């Protein structure tokens, strides 16, 4: 069985209408960098495919001090924006030029680990996702959207239309560790955000990628950081907590054991980098 119909709706309304008419057997594709290899390899055999390229969801706009990212914004556009440096860095560390030109920010939220590098940064920024279908529109925290390995809260008749990044306080660091420097699958990806009042941490996010069924928040590590002054003892303790609470897996890139060890190392490095960065800026 091969693709017999390919739809290219010109508006969101058309796309939603097609989806409700054809149901879940209509495969939605954004950049296609995850979906097309599956189709070409004969693993995915959709009869009908809908491309989202022309539905007009590819804008990035500042909003209320934060950012509004259309679901089909390419990773290249995310890399080029200057509003949220951690998102540009996350995009820069994702895949290669050619994949970034096709691959979308929305698509990254569906990519199973070890993929999903941009999702990790978005999680540390408390991002929300907007979902729209024939029954209307709803907004969910990204942490509630990703529900398991390859599963999300998206209903069969819904599309992901946008990602909202609120105006959040604090400094950020993003570290992706792979076997190579560029264009490499992640062993572990770490995104941290820390807000402080003077020396004291008032709010912290530690998001991890490639060490669980989807991007995860290391909540115990976050709890260790809040109230600390990011002193070496607190950083070590947070790194240890993150290593304990992650849920790593074995694959061709790394063993679960190694991934856990690298969580310990790279959470510590990310936090140390953040401290150094703040010290330099404060001069």
């Amino acid at each position: 069985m091969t693709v017999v119909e390919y739809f290219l709706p010109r508006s969101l309304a058309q796309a939603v209408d097609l989806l409700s008419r054809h149901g879940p057997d209509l495969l939605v594709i954004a950049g296609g960098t995850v979906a097309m290899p599956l189709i070409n390899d004969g693993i995915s055999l959709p009869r009908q495919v809908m491309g989202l390229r022309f539905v007009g969801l590819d804008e990035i706009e500042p909003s209320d001090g934060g950012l509004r990212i259309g679901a089909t914004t390419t990773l290249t556009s995310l890399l080029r924006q200057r509003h949220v440096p951690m998102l540009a860095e996350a995009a820069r560390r994702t895949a290669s030029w050619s994949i970034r030109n096709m691959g979308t920010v929305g698509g990254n939220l569906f990519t199973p680990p070890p993929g999903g590098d941009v999702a990790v940064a978005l999680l540390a920024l408390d991002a929300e996702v907007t979902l729209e279908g024939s029954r209307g529109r709803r907004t969910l925290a990204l942490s509630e959207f990703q529900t398991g390995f390859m599963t999300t809260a998206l209903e069969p008749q819904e599309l992901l239309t946008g990602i909202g990044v609120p105006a959040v306080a604090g400094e950020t660091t993003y570290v992706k560790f792979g076997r190579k420097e560029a264009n490499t699958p992640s062993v572990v990806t770490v995104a941290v955000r820390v807000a402080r009042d003077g020396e004291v941490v008032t709010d912290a996010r530690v998001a991890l990628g490639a060490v669980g069924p989807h991007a995860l928040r290391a909540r115990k590590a976050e709890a260790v950081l809040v109230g600390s002054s990011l002193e070496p003892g607190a950083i070590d303790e947070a790194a240890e907590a993150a290593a304990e609470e992650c849920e790593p897996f074995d694959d061709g890139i790394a063993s679960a054991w190694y991934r856990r060890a690298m969580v310990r190392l790279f959470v510590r490095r990310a936090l140390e980098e953040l401290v150094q960065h703040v010290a330099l800026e404060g001069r």
Partner: protein
Amino acid sequence: MKVAGHHVLDAGPREVFDAACDPATLLAVIPGCEAIEQVAPHEYQGSLVLRLPGVGATFRTFVRLVDADPPHAAGMEGRVEGPMGTIAGRADFGLTEVDDEPAHDGRPGAGSDGRSIASRTLLEYRGEAVIQGPLARLDSRFAESLANTLIAQGLQALNSHLIEASSTVAPASGRPSPREAPE
């Protein structure tokens, strides 16, 4: 493909067993389950809609309960058929009553929402399946991780269902979280 794990559910083995054999309950708790009907005393047939990244498909499912020893144990033989392949296998599960285990909040005899409940059940499962067709080309990590996710979500939903069904005395509050530990 192999899966194994255990969960603690906030109801007695009898209630868990009955719920697991009730098509209406199964329809409500199985992720993506769109239809289910009983076609013979211990046989069910239904359809499952899974919209996975890169794959949009409806799967036909057939499940037969075998070696049932209610309410302690049962086996399930089943087949899931979709455009990209077939998954066929067998799973066995055992139900044991747990009454003295410290509850989620450390107090004995309290459910995951702190409510006092009569008993709880340790559900242990182990399953093996053979994947055929294009789907078999995927790394087995994908199928196993996905199966573990769907089982965890299904059992979480089953637990909510059991708590709701038994909550004529005090309404359930909050989201129950059965402890899960895939082996």
